[in-house]
């Protein structure tokens, strides 16, 4: 079975500071990896995804993530955060190639709060 662990439930940072949100996954087969963002009172929105190829993935709003197979990690980074980045961030996996397994398995989320 697959699982996703987000090591930090909350991450407070100052505006314009860099941030890293950590994510580790467990799977016996290859997976696709995702980061979703949930702004207050809004639905989930895809930030970025890793399917194959380059391990550094760039997403929307200046975010990027790096896939590290040996460490089974997919940490999310942004070099300089804005107040508008305040949201809940979810790391997630899905298994490629199986029609019944396109369900997404989410981590428990990391709440990013930006201080002015």
């Amino acid at each position, binding site marked *: 079975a697959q699982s*996703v662990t987000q090591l930090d439930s909350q991450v407070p940072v100052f505006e314009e500071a860099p941030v890293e949100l950590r994510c580790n996954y467990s799977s016996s087969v290859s997976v*696709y990896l995702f980061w*979703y963002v949930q702004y207050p009172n*809004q*639905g*989930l*929105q*895809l930030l970025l*995804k890793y*399917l194959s190829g380059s391990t550094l993935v760039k997403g929307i709003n200046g975010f990027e993530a790096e896939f590290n197979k040996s460490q089974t990690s997919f940490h999310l980074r942004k070099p300089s955060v804005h107040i508008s980045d305040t949201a809940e961030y*979810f790391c*997630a996996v*899905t*298994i*490629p*190639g199986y*029609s*019944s*397994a*396109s*369900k*997404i*398995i*989410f*981590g*428990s*989320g990391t709440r990013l709060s930006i201080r002015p």
Partner: protein
Amino acid sequence: GAGVSQTPSNKVTEKGKYVELRCDPISGHTALYWYRQSLGQGPEFLIYFQGTGAADDSGLPNDRFFAVRPEGSVSTLKIQRTERGDSAVYLCASSLQDRGIDTQYFGPGTRLTVL
């Protein structure tokens, strides 16, 4: 174009009552998913439809939960004899096809509160 819509946005009911939650996927999307998000948790998979049929219902917690998608578009999640533990945000998502590479687009959710 229009995104995934869900109605109602909020539903308050009493323990033991029956509720229906509706999802309108993006037009042309053949795959539809239901997830449940409890407070402080990530969404958990409930059921997935490919067209009209439920291809995977392994996430439904028990037989009080049922979902249909009779014409391959709109889906309804039905909960019988609701319990307080059913309180959560129910999310619907759709994707163009059922492949892991197809982005799932999520609706805003229905917040269900069982008193």
